[in-house]
């Protein structure tokens, strides 16, 4: 197991290195660097200004030089300096990470609890009306793009029935302490529901098919034939085994939820990492975009690693060499 972990960690580092090269190159080769964009709208920018600003922002260096400069700063534990926010990237990430985690935790909790429960129930009552309804709804959920659902929710729950705010994180003027906490929770409801329901559909599908597979196994039939009550069969024998692939899904769905967060945060103006990435890419702020992308890459790699490890932990039949 430890050897496996060590090998995977080394592999992960290689993957991360490759990814960083790829991401950096893609960002740098997006035409129109910040100075060019400025020059295209500002008639007062003279050639000397352009040359001076390009040198100031290090845009004249060859790509590989810029990449290695970036690697060097990151290796020193410094994520660089945001050109557009005029502050260290680390500080920006610190401000935003917590907000994203709040959103993700809520969304994950909703998606997993409701999704798994509905999936299991629908597997146990296959071909019932509930099963059909759950299947239909989850397909609708899978097919509905997050941005559209976000706008729909705003329309319904903020415009037609004004229960919740149409985006933002805090109402200006709400004092600190408990009112601020409640105000923030109030702002969290819609984005959490949107992000949660986006993931919920796949949880329903996975847990339903996993449960269906398990209840057809020989050991479930054996359990039933030896006279165990149905409750005990489903709980002890079926559910536990059905949860194994779902646990993997838990880790593997982290990247998908993070992706969804970019869209949800943008729609709801929720100041998290996703919104930061969106703005950084639009504003050609490479230091910030690279930091957020790197964070997403690390999260994805760790989640995959976690999935492998958890798989071995919950299923004694699986052993890594």
């Amino acid at each position, binding site marked *: 197991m430890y050897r496996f972990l060590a090998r995977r960690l080394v592999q992960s580092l290689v993957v991360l290195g490759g990814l960083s090269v790829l991401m950096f190159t893609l960002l740098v080769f*997006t*035409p*129109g*660097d*910040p100075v*060019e*964009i*400025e*020059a*295209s709208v*500002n*008639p*007062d*920018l*003279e*050639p000397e*200004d352009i040359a*001076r*600003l390009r040198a*100031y922002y290090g845009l004249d260096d060859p790509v590989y030089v810029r990449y290695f400069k970036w690697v060097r700063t990151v290796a020193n534990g410094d994520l660089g*300096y945001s*050109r*557009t926010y*005029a*502050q260290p990237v680390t500080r920006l990430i610190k*401000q935003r990470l917590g907000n994203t985690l709040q959103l993700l935790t809520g969304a994950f909790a909703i998606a997993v*609890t409701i999704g798994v429960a509905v999936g299991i129930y629908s597997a146990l009552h296959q071909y019932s009306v509930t099963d059909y309804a759950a299947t239909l709804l989850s397909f609708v959920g899978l097919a509905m793009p997050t941005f559209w659902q976000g*706008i729909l929710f*705003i*329309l319904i729950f*903020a*415009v037609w029935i*004004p229960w919740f*705010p*149409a*985006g*933002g*994180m*805090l*109402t*200006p*003027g*709400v004092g600190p302490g408990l*009112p601020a906490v*409640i*105000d923030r*929770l*109030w702002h969290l*409801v819609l984005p959490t529901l949107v992000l949660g329901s986006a993931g919920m559909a796949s949880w329903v599908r996975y847990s339903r098919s996993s449960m269906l597979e398990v209840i057809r196994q020989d050991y479930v039939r054996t359990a039933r034939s030896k006279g165990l009550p149905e409750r005990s069969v489903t*709980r002890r024998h079926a559910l536990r085994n059905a949860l194994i692939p779902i646990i993997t899904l838990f880790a593997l769905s982290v990247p998908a939820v993070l992706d969804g967060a970019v869209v949800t945060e*943008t*729609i709801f*103006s*929720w*100041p*998290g990492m996703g*919104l*930061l990435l969106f703005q950084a890419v639009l*504003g*050609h702020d490479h230091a910030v975009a690279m930091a957020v992308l790197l964070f997403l890459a690390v999260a994805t790699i760790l989640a995959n690693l976690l999935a492998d490890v958890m798989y071995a932990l919950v299923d004694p039949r699986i052993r890594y060499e």
Partner: protein
Amino acid sequence: MAVLLRRAAVAAVTVAMVLAVWPSGVQAQGRNRVVVLLGQEPAELFPGFVSNLAVETDVESPMWCGLIGRDNNWKLYTDLATKLPTLKDGDWQLLPGRKMKVTFKLKTTYRWHDGRNVGAEDFVWTLRMRKNPNTPVVSRFVDNKIDNVLAPDPYTISFQWNEIYPYANLDPFSLLPAHVLRPQFNRDPRTIDKSPFGRAPVACGAFKFKQWSAGNFIELEAFDQYGGPKAKVRNLTFRFILDSTVMTANLIAGEGDATATSNLSLEQLAEIDRRTGGRMTTHAIEGLTWEHIDYNMDNEWLKDRRVRWAIAHAIDRESMSRTLFAGRQPVAHTYFGPKHFAHNANVKKYAYDPARARQLLAEAGFTPGADGILRDGQGRPFRITIMTTSGNAVREQVQQIIKDQLKQVGIDLIIDNRPASVLFGQVTRERRYPHLVMYAWVSAPTTHFRTIWHSGEIPTAANNYVGQNTPGYRNAEVDRLLEQAEGELDEGKRAAVLKKVQELWAEDLPSLPLFFRLELNVSRKDLKNYLPRGIGAPTWNAEAWTY
């Protein structure tokens, strides 16, 4: 599992109940607060540095003071200066060697937000800082024309100009507080833009900075020691909402009192009109963003101005204005907007006239082919490409209409769009468009379009693509008049020269003018004195806003 589920259900119901009883009053905005919605979050509030996004000007305007301001009729008014310098009064002097001296007397009542006096010293220091080669100032276009600023007394400043510049009676730069920024500047001028000042500025306007909740909002509050007319509302809050659909929803839901720079469309404004039952007022004003199509003057077909005229006659811009913009965005016939001091309403106009277009093309040597597409003298089909920014719905609609209308006169139009970064990073900058390119120039009330029409400004590989004359327009008389206008201090005479340029230009037609993009804004009906100008920053007079 069941126990877990039961607990989760109980928790969910509890949360729902708390939320249900939570008074919706948390969103009630006091009558002392104006919430302005912005389509983007400012990067920093440090005029002159790094970025100068329109949304930054929206927030900076109510916070900053300046010598001279420009109102909603584009008329100048005095802010920090006691009067507007003029040649007649002698506070604007012409000196030998085409130099100038312009003197401003400052009001003594202005204070920085930390209580210190605003004075001549701040101007002296700001110019010195901006002229230091190591400070990352964005543009030194105006700074380079000024040799020095003198302070004969603490409330008098004299700018010494090293060339004739017709707008020397306006603020040459945004004023910065010397006492706040000097220590950082003295430590290292290269890092002045990294000062915490950019996220919490000390300025001198009617509103002072209160807090910036990153990604969320910026809050300003009335500054009681302001030297000008005091703010009537106590609090000005800017909320950032990136998506225009979401912004529309917010305005309908009553979560914003006004807007500044945003991506709202005319349809969304109509929706807001319809759904708020007269609670909100919508404003659509012709702005400074000039939408147009550049002809590539080096193309062998487009070189012939009869072909350029023909294309202009073949396109029905009037009906586009009616169908796409509900008639609220009139057709442009020149590049200066109607409020520009040199706007010439009498230039040659190209009305929709397909018969005239066909006739001009025949004169230019094109003959109809069997497939309905014209052929040139060598038998090649008249097939041309139009490029623009992909994803811009309005421009894409305009393209479709143009394609259809040009087909009527025998021109086959191919649409080839690129993302904005590619279009402006390569296509227009390096003139890499074969025939037509549609985009916009953003000007200012003081722009002459010299860098756009002067033949010395054509970007080429040899000059490292410097200049903004994207069509490749050459007219010696236009060059001469543009240079003359730069040195003409009398506004009436300058306007006459620039009007003449527009006449010659409209005759040559290096670009087809389309529209001046509307500056779209929304405000609560009961918010008084909200007066957008069509030059950005509708917050210019936020101190006068009141319910």
